[in-house]
């Protein structure tokens, strides 16, 4: 019943934790039963994580908040993928869903998340993340997929030294201890441009915001995960500190081999660091393209509007404009395309039918808009 059974480290799904509910969507195809023995490194461009038709909703007093709606996206091995969109577009929910850290009132109604085994020895070949039991999940989190959360101060236990926090994580995963652990941690500190000796013995409050963020990144990388999710990694940091974090992340990617997902409302972070960009609106990915296409040749009216709404230091005042209206109510969504109330191109079809995310000129550029062919021209984008 579950392809993960062939992984000896996993107990049968009958011992699944009650929450979060991760039942398989009715009619969803069974996961490919890849034998556990094939753990050869996957080809570059192959997905490390596949999200397939995933929907996540939160229960609220007024009804269900449809935070993520039928998102299908592959995160490729070694790539940096940015999820951009306004607050409420579902990007953080999607990130939390991947590591299954959603709050109790969330339900994953539909879809599946498949982690395509680590290339290292002993790693599972294909994990159905939504069906992992407590123990499997504990392994998946941090060893395969780590997350750096938004508020860097709150992520630490204030009464433990950095060294103790590292030891905690290492112990929980049966990783190095003692001097070996210290050596490994200090090596990571050097990678993220921290003074190893000073930081190793420090309490969180003794570190600045930027330093804490770098310690968190180092901690996330401790077990060499294949996938690192960063939720707003530079928000609330000063510009020069932001620059430093970005440089650290860029350098890490050239040195270590892992995929990154950035969640950010800050378009400049995506422009700076991402290989590909997924633009989200009302819980759906509305455009998916490489970073240059997203910024220079976007085809979805929302992406076009969003790029125009963010001035750069060199933009002329007259080339900036905002998107009319406000983001939709996620409980009472508009009919058809969820962007239609704010879209200058909307017509009857848009009000009636929601457009699917479809390849445009190439398979790598996908847009969910009935009028993607003419949108740029009609909106007067350069």
């Amino acid at each position: 019943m579950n392809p993960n059974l062939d992984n000896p480290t996993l107990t049968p799904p009958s011992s699944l934790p009650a929450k979060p509910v991760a039942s398989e969507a009715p009619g969803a195809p069974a996961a490919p039963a890849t034998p556990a023995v094939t753990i050869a490194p996957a080809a570059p461009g192959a997905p490390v994580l596949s999200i397939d038709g995933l929907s996540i909703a939160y229960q609220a007093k007024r009804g269900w908040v449809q935070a993520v709606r039928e998102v299908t996206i592959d995160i490729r091995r070694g790539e940096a993928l940015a999820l951009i969109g306004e607050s409420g577009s579902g990007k953080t929910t999607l990130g939390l869903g991947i590591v299954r850290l959603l709050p109790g009132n969330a339900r994953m109604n539909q879809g599946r998340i498949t982690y395509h085994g680590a290339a290292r020895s002993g790693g599972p070949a294909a994990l159905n993340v939504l069906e992992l039991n407590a123990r499997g999940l504990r392994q998946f989190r941090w060893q395969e997929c780590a997350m750096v959360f938004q508020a860097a101060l709150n992520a630490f236990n204030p009464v433990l030294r950095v060294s103790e926090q590292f030891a905690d994580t290492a112990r929980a995963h049966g990783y190095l201890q003692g001097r070996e652990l210290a050596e490994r941690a200090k090596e990571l500190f050097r990678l993220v441009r921290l003074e190893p000796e000073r930081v190793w013995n420090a309490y969180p409050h003794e570190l600045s915001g930027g330093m804490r963020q770098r310690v968190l990144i180092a901690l996330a990388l401790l077990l060499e995960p294949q996938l690192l999710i960063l939720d707003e990694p530079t928000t609330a940091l000063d510009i020069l500190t932001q620059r430093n974090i970005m440089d650290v992340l860029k350098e890490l990617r050239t040195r270590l081999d892992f995929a990154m997902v950035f969640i950010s409302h800050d378009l400049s972070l995506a422009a700076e660091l991402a290989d590909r960009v997924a633009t989200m609106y009302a819980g759906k990915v509305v455009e998916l393209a490489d970073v240059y296409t997203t910024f220079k040749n976007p085809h979805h009216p929302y992406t076009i509007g969003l790029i125009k709404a963010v001035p750069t230091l060199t933009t002329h005042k007259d080339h900036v404009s905002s998107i009319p209206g406000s983001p939709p109510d996620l409980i009472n969504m508009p009919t058809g395309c969820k962007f239609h109330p704010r879209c200058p191109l909307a017509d009857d079809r848009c009000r009636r039918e929601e457009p699917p995310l479809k390849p445009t000129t190439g398979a790598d550029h996908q847009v969910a808009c009935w009028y993607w062919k003419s949108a740029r021209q009609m909106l007067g984008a350069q």
Partner: protein
Amino acid sequence: MAGSLIELKNITRSFHIKRNTYIQAVNNVSLHIQEGEIVCLVGESGCGKTTTGRMIVGLLAPSAGQVLYRGRDIAHLDEREKREYRLGVQLVHQDPYASLNPSFTIYDTMAAPLKRHGYTRSESATRGRVIELLEMVDLTPAADFLDKYPHQLSGGQRQRVSVARALTVNPSFIVADEAVSMVDVSIRISLLNTLLRLKEKMGLAVLFITHDLALAKYFAWEGRIGVMYLGRMIEIAPARQLVEQPRHPYTQALLAAIPEADPDITRHKRHIQLRSMDLPSLLNLPRGCTFHPRCPIWEAGLCDREEPELSQFRDGSAVACHVIRRQRAEELA
């Protein structure tokens, strides 16, 4: 300077942190703002920009120096003048979720100052004025908003209500402290455009406090930008000039470090290497120029000894840097 709407004369503000320990959040800042002028204050957190804004609106008293409103020191106004100042200078807060009373409808929030200060004498006049003000900030149809509570509005709409509320008392000057930072990116520009239109229509002067230099340039296109660092004003210049030809090494480093929403630009920027990444603590400020431990062009014996003053240049900029000042003098010689 004659005719300034607001004038800051060497204002300093220190805070008592613990026994015998004070920090100077703002140090010797001077600034003139004319009627109808837009000035942006930018800088990293802790640079004193918000404290400066709070001293201008009278929420904090300077420890030293003076704030003048139409030429009069706000610490020594008589009752009538004080009322005029209190109405003339309004603040729009950063957080639209915290700055509106959640148990008041939008109408209640807007009507209270109108009635309190006698701008409207009857319920129907109040209603008419509230609708007019809501329309001014593009909350249309205004009648739909009157009976709503803040929680029924989006962040952007709430911030528009905050602006409309500030306008009830016909101010001549608005201090907007990070007024769009909590609003979604897609609607920030339209909120700023509303403020710009009000400035045109009503001759409002605006002090806009932000950490986003690209937004500051957009908003202060015809105005000025002042850059603060550790409580001091280190450069102030016409907005586009400041962004395109920054003079102070800190401003240069800041502009070079800013990531931009354009992959071509942002990936090919030349970054300026600072000597140190760490922002000094306000508790233990470096001697001389406070930027010297990080400055790429500092000179030993000069920058670590004397604090540079903000010196005015002919192109309209003012910079507080010993080295830049000397370079300019040599160019002119």
